[in-house]
């Protein structure tokens, strides 16, 4: 995690963190934390898949576009959808209403895309985790 990200954490002294993830003043807006079958039964027939959308705070995207993108991937397969945002996006409630089972990870504005990815990975239960930008030109952001 970058030093800037750590500096952003400093204000939240009341959290009494115990792990690296807890250090972060994130909040999850998931409908519910689903139980991971991997830890329940130890083995599965097929791999569990997670899809992480990373949305850095320096760009905005329309609710319609983001919802379409999430739904397109969510409907393809049985995947856990996670939206990791730096700062709270506009119309978050509306997105969550339209995309069922979407887990939202909110990090402070200014968190780098790499830190967002790392934070989201800690929440991803999948065996195969795909990381994408919420924007169409992900290379410009991720690089």
């Amino acid at each position, binding site marked *: 995690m970058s030093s800037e990200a750590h500096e952003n954490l400093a204000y939240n002294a009341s959290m009494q963190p115990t792990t690296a993830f807890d250090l972060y003043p994130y909040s999850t807006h998931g409908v519910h934390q689903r139980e991971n079958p991997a830890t329940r039964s130890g*083995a599965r*027939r*097929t791999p569990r898949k997670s899809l992480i959308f990373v949305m850095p705070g320096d760009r905005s995207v329309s609710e319609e576009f983001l919802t379409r993108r999430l739904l397109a991937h969510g409907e393809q397969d049985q995947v856990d959808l996670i939206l990791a945002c730096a700062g709270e996006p506009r119309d978050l409630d509306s997105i969550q209403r339209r995309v069922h089972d979407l887990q939202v990870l909110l990090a402070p504005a200014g968190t780098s895309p*790499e830190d967002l990815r790392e934070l989201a*990975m800690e929440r991803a239960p999948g*065996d195969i*985790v795909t*990381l994408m930008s919420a924007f169409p030109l*992900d290379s410009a952001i991720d690089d």
Partner: protein
Amino acid sequence: MAQSVTLSVIVTACDSVSTLASALRAIRTSSLPRDAYELIVVDDASSDASVFIASRYADTVVKLTGERCGPAYARNRGAELARGQLIAFIDSDVVVRKDTLSTMVATLADRPDLNAISASHDETPGSTNFVSLYWNLLLRFGEERHGAHCAQFASGCGMIRREAFLSSGMFDEWRFATGCLESAELGVRLRHTGNGLLLSRDLKVSYLTRWNMSKVCREVWRRSRILARSLGYVRMSSAVPSEVVFTLTRSLSPVLALLATLTLAAAFFPAPSVLLKTGLVFGGLLLTNVPLMRFYAETRGLGFAIAVAPLHSLAQAVSMIALCTGWVLRGILGDPSPDATTQAYAELGLEMWPPVRRRR
């Protein structure tokens, strides 16, 4: 990420926290356009933070859990997800140069006769301690001397056409549960099925692993033992002469002949000087290693070449003993195979995740 990519880069990691970030950063900063490739990291049940480092750079992270099954298994799992027509395998301790991947792609595009291309070790490894320099240059020597004629597919940094990889049966995850010679074996198989391979001496990559004496001895022991037990020394020596075990043991035959002559001579001389005999054997050993020592002297100086001689003799001795052990084990136990449970699961064809190691 574009829907169709030319290349899938697969990096396998296993407790690679010290080198993985550098390896992935080098791939991401390569001159290849970002939308031309996908980056897949397969984590082989690491107990450190490799998965989180991978998530900072990769497009897809595959988390294998439970028992570690080795890089051959992990690479195969990555290849199953790959969408590119070309697949590049890069180890988690390898730093590619800016133009390595683009040159490999261009070479395979220009030469339809080639199905796989590999990069070789450069002269300056990431760790510059004495043993790392010795080991890195030892590998480099084999690649420079025999690279042009060998069927080596270097999985440290190698690119292969997807069709050729799949049709050859992928890596042999059944026999190679640890990272050792599985890429050499794949290279031989590719060559036998008519695929063209190139181990390029001009394409160089840097290896970051820090070696010490015990690590070198263990690596030499493993490679030599597996070579003798599973692959066959003679068959591999003609197919993959650049393999480090052959660099170590090729010169041992004349030394053993000298030793035998001295032993025989001792029968006729009642009081032979032990010092003289030892000196003769070591002298013979050095003479048979002249090309290698010259290479060390040219690359790092005469002092380095002299200092390396005892370490090299030790590695040669370890390799020789390991080869003999491998031959004996092959005679008694045969080719190694996975444990009984894995074999039983494989026999049943049980569908599960992570999948049971597959017999080729």
